[in-house]
């Protein structure tokens, strides 16, 4: 109901779209004129225009003019940065984010449960985000497979999945997979319950994957010899791990403390696979050299810490310190809320430890693109890359900065002026549906439906 209402509201925006903005007629061609361009790859360019053709950056320069019929965004006095990439998101997932019963669940795919109408997509566009890395939760030592989503608000899910992105899978270490914080736990403990057990789950799983791989190799060899062998039984979990062993599936590993980070690197070395990113990695700074040697990126919070025991040595200097030591750093949100202001979060790497502005900028653009294996096509403002931009009314790290337009593939998906023009009065908003607060509902509409259902089941007259 609330979702539908919002879609109608947005449909209204699209239908009434004056000029070219937020209209179905957008072609993916545009000229952004006379901006300060923060490229993230080659510095800051003053008084620069960007020509976009068919959703890609066609030219960057001082004296560009728009071909006939191509719309112009006058960005005089504004700042353009690459569309922000949130490397750790759970937005747009319909329902729970954890397949929590088994300790390993890589058969689960996030792309199967994406909700393209999630209002958080629009809210994050309003914070300059153009791509989110939607991850499975951290209840499992080996969790589900991820989705890299372009925030084409209103498009079908199939069009939002980024075609160039390699598949990734979530791993998790520490308090979450050992289930230290189970809420009103049902039944007994699930294996593993200690960090040693998390390691054992990883080793046992990769041992099984190696054996499974051999079975398939033997099967294919027999086929090649012209024999007629029985194929091994398909195992979707082990298929995924074989993909990891073969370097086709990227590993994004939720982790906090330094000992478990080293453990993971040893497991990866022993079985011959790579870790692409540590997710969170609050103590990554303690093992920066090992991470650099393994070319592992760290996707962390700007300054979130102390919320549980494994987060007590998390320091806001993590991002800058790792950068000083040559490790690729990403600042992520892991939150529908923080995702809306990742530019402010990235600036904290300047505040804590003195990262440069370009280093901080890369933490939410180019470095995030590398983590997802899509840095050849997004993450910076370079000719040939996707035309994904966040346009600000000032420097994105300045206190009074806000996003005025967000562009995905050369089309405007957020326009603050148009959003403001569509606003209702506060009284009108208050009449719209508001869900209740609280973990167990307070959602009056749902409660009323459940009331009627219960009445019908007991033969009541509702």
């Amino acid at each position, binding site marked *: 109901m609330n979702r539908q209402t919002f879609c109608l509201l947005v449909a209204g925006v699209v239908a009434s779209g004056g000029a070219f903005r937020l209209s179905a007629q957008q072609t993916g061609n545009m000229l952004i004129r006379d901006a300060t361009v923060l490229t993230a790859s080659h510095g800051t360019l003053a008084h620069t225009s960007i020509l976009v053709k068919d959703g890609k950056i066609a030219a960057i320069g001082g004296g560009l003019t728009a071909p006939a019929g191509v719309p112009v965004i006058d960005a005089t006095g504004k700042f353009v940065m690459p569309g922000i990439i949130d490397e750790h998101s759970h937005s747009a997932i319909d329902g729970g984010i954890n397949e929590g019963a088994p300790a390993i669940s890589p058969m689960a795919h996030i792309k199967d449960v994406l909700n393209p109408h999630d209002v958080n997509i629009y809210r994050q566009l309003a914070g300059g985000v153009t791509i989110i890395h939607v991850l499975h939760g951290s209840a499992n030592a080996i969790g589900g497979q991820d989705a890299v989503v372009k925030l084409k608000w209103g498009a079908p899910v199939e069009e939002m999945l980024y075609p160039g992105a390699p598949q990734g899978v979530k791993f998790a270490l520490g308090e979450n997979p050992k289930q230290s914080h189970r809420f009103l736990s049902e039944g007994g403990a699930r294996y593993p319950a200690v960090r040693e057990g998390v390691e054992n789950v990883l080793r046992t799983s990769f041992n099984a994957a190696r054996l499974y791989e051999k079975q398939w190799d033997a099967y294919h060899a027999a086929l090649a010899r012209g024999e007629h062998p029985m194929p091994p039984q398909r195992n979707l979990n082990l298929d995924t791990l074989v993909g990891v062993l073969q370097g086709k599936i990227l590993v994004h590993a939720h982790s906090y403390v330094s000992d478990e980070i080293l453990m993971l690197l040893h497991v990866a070395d022993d079985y011959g696979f790579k870790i692409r990113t540590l997710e969170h990695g609050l103590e990554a*700074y303690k093992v920066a050299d090992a991470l650099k040697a393994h070319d592992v990126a760290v996707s962390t919070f700007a300054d979130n810490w102390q919320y549980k025991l494994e987060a007590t040595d998390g320091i806001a200097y993590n991002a800058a*310190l790792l950068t*000083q030591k040559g490790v690729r750093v990403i600042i992520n949100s892991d939150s529908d809320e923080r995702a809306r202001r990742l530019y402010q979060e990235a600036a904290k790497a300047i505040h804590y430890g003195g990262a440069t502005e370009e280093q901080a900028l890369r933490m939410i653009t180019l470095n995030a693109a590398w983590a997802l294996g899509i840095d050849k096509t997004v993450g910076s403002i370079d000719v040939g890359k996707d035309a994904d931009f966040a346009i600000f009314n000032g420097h994105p790290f300045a*206190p009074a900065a806000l996003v005025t337009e967000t562009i995905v593939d050369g089309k405007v998906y957020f326009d603050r002026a148009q*959003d403001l023009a569509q606003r209702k009065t506060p009284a009108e908003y208050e009449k719209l549906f508001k*869900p209740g*607060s609280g973990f167990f509902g307070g959602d009056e509409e749902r409660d009323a439906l459940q009331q009627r259902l219960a009445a019908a089941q007991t033969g009541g007259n509702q």
Partner: protein
Amino acid sequence: MRTPCSSTTVRRGGMSVAFLVLPILAAPAPRQAGAPIAIVHARIVPVSAPVINDGTLLMQGGKITAVGAGVSVPAGATVIDAKGLWVYPGMFDANTTLGIAEIPLGAPGTMDVDEVGAFNPAEAAGVAVNPSSEIIGTTRANGITTALTAPHGGVISGQGSVIDLGIGTTDQMNVRRAAALWVNFPQHHGQGDFFERYRRLLAGEPPPSSEERERAYRKQVDQLRDYFSAARRYAGVADHATDRDLAMEAMAPYVAGRLPVVFQVDRAEDIRSAVTFGEEMKLKYVLAGCNDAWEAVQTLAEHHVPVILGEVTAMPTSDNDPYDAPYSNAAKLAAAGVPFAIATASAVDSRNLPYNAALAEAYGLPADEALKAITLYPAQILGLQDELGSLAPGKRANVIVTNGDPLDVRTTVRYLFIDGRPTPLDNKGLRLYREYGGKP
């Protein structure tokens, strides 16, 4: 008045500080009045007065003694040449759990926020403030010198205390142990009784009907009214030699309107109910939270109700709400003349107080108002404006020296004084940064 700082000029700017070595005090020591301290050649932002471009701030005996362009430095004073640096009052976060909340998950021994029972007015947060909290160290380093810390359990949670974030004992940190009564005002759309809902969920029973819910809500408001009424009757009787009641006694300054009662509310309808209640009970009342203040601006303006907004870094209440509703709340209150402050409603995020104000500034709050919202306004709302919130002679010398606009994330704090005492900016994060080889 303030300009966003350019990182090239301020962050690593060549500051010329004549006296760099401030005493680093490893252990709590008595906060005694030492030699006067003079900060000279600074750009001073007093908040309650115009900016002074090349000014001197003088502190002695824990108080600010002079602020101005032509202030003469007394002999024997410790002089800090702050050319190129900016001087502001320490920031004031008027809604926190600082000192009573450390590690929420896995270490319940560090949590002193949620008391058992609905009415606990006699319990004050200031009693349980942990002066060694690692969170306080990181908060102080960002220029926050003062906080209201309050329990948040039950209905009348207890009393919020105004503390400073200096080095010292709990007693030294307490500015006002009894500063405000913290009340979680009943919610129309609240989850109701948690255990009752969970029991129903497990039993497969439907949730309460809207009539049941309304009855439960009314009952909660009636109970709260009864409690305040009982406290008022108790205060009306002079002699309690044989029936002294500590909870009722604790309520006395609040029912008398001497100290503020804070109603935590978020929804517009709850905001209106809390206002109705506050007016009916003739309280000196303040609202906190107020995520939906933008929908109730008219009511708030009509009754001139002070609001401790925050956190700003929040989500809109409903999918239908404007995406920037929490960001633009402050600008709307300011435009309507509603007194307000910005707070974080947190312990660990209290260090982000200036960045909450920055978001409000980005979404329409004038820059000088954004600064006041985290300095002078919280002091005014809590009745401490004669002691705190701006740089003026006679006020507590809670002072920060920065390399730029404190609302700019790129700015850092260079010196901090609490009660006129140089206070170290070192903290757990910085210690580990050094230990693991971070560049100075």
